[in-house]
């Protein structure tokens, strides 16, 4: 009999799936074309910003759970697992943001990539959390790994707002360089607004589902280890006998 929690996760998964399908359908067939965008490319509006948003949410969650892990009263390995799971999903969505952004940039700007500060810092964020994941993968005592990863997550996340502030600052100083986020001045109305909202909600649900699944997987691995531990201890305690 699946537990209440796992049923909830399954429900969230289905909702996310339906939501994403609905977003795509609305985006492709219902919402109008916008002026200034070559054939229907505005439709990326319904997936690209939600993906970027989800990435931030994921990193924020990794930050929060790392903080909770480090705080002595709430120290718990579950927060460590949550941080890892969330950061992993965040990296996936940062990657998707980069890909959809590039796909969008090619027709709108004529290039796949440009050294716009926002783009560059998004890519840096991607690498930053790849580093965090690499650190997590370095083997060691679980608590030691959790401790150092948590601190790395703190530092990494402090970077996120700083980078984004400095980017807006940069813009105000320089005026927008050769690149202009046309989309930012887009007048969003009616069905477009609803579709965008739906996009945000369903991608957030997708995030929740993925993180929960990843967390569950990590928990299972730990559980397996814990069960293995009794065996390992028994084996270790028997070492002497073998030696005789």
């Amino acid at each position, binding site marked *: 009999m699946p537990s209440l929690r796992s049923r909830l996760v399954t429900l969230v998964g289905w909702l996310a799936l339906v939501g994403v399908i609905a977003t795509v359908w609305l985006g492709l067939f219902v919402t109008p074309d916008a002026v200034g965008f070559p054939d229907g490319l505005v439709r990326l509006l319904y997936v690209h910003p939600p993906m970027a948003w989800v990435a931030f949410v994921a990193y924020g969650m990794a930050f929060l759970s790392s903080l909770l892990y480090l705080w002595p009263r709430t120290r718990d390995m579950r927060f460590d697992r949550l941080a890892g799971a969330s950061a992993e999903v965040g990296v996936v969505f940062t990657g998707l943001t980069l890909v959809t952004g590039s796909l969008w940039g090619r027709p709108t700007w004529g290039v796949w990539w440009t050294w716009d500060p926002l783009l560059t810092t998004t890519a840096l964020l991607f690498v930053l959390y790849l580093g965090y994941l690499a650190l997590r993968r370095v083997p060691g005592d679980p608590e030691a790994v959790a401790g150092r990863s948590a601190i790395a997550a703190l*530092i990494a996340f402090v970077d996120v707002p700083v980078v984004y502030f400095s980017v807006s600052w940069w813009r105000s100083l320089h005026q927008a360089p050769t690149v202009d986020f046309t989309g930012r001045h887009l007048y969003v109305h009616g069905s477009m607004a609803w579709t965008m909202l739906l996009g945000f909600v369903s991608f957030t649900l997708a995030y929740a589902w993925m993180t929960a699944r990843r967390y569950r997987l990590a928990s299972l691995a730990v559980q397996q280890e814990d069960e293995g531990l009794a065996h390992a201890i028994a084996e270790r305690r028997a070492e002497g006998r073998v030696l005789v």
Partner: protein
Amino acid sequence: MLRDAALVAGKDLRIELRSRVALNQVVPFAAAVVLLFGLALGPDRSVLAPAAAGLFWIAVLLSALLATQRSFAVESADGARDGLRLSGLDPAGIFLGKVGAVVAELLVLEVLLAFGVAVLYGAHLAGALVLLGSCLAASIGLGAVGIVYGAVASGLRVRETLLPLLILPVAAPVLLGATKAWDEALRGTPSHALGWLSLLAVFAVVYVAIGVVAFGPLLEDA
């Protein structure tokens, strides 16, 4: 805590004075970075002139990386973590002491390296203040991040490769802020640099604060 910091900084600087690694190896390395990368990015002046500040700060960033690695290499090699943990010193003190030593080394490096750049571009006095201020703030920020991650990576067999990967992306705001501040100062509009300068200061404060708080758990956790 401050007594411990002074003790650690004194020890690190004494080792540095004796081995002269910063002066004989890191400074030439920084110079090589500026020259080489200038070359690689094109001998075209139109490319290089606006990029001078950027190059300078990249060289500083890479040198900070080396200084951090060195800072943990002088701790008893593979036993660095064990040694620091058994020393009985206050972790926050260790952190501040090591940051202090690295910042001192970086400042010397920056002065030497900047001398050339500043002379070439004839910065004004007001500019010089901004240059100095951003050097100080940026060095503290880099030093703090470096020492925290240095402790994270110390004792791991993969530290040579892990440490650069960890430090580089996090240092991006410092690089950005310092480059911009220098840009403005060199261009003769130091007042525009104040925003960037405060960004650097915020950054330095935040990272030093994180380091002071986090260094304990970092060393404690087995």
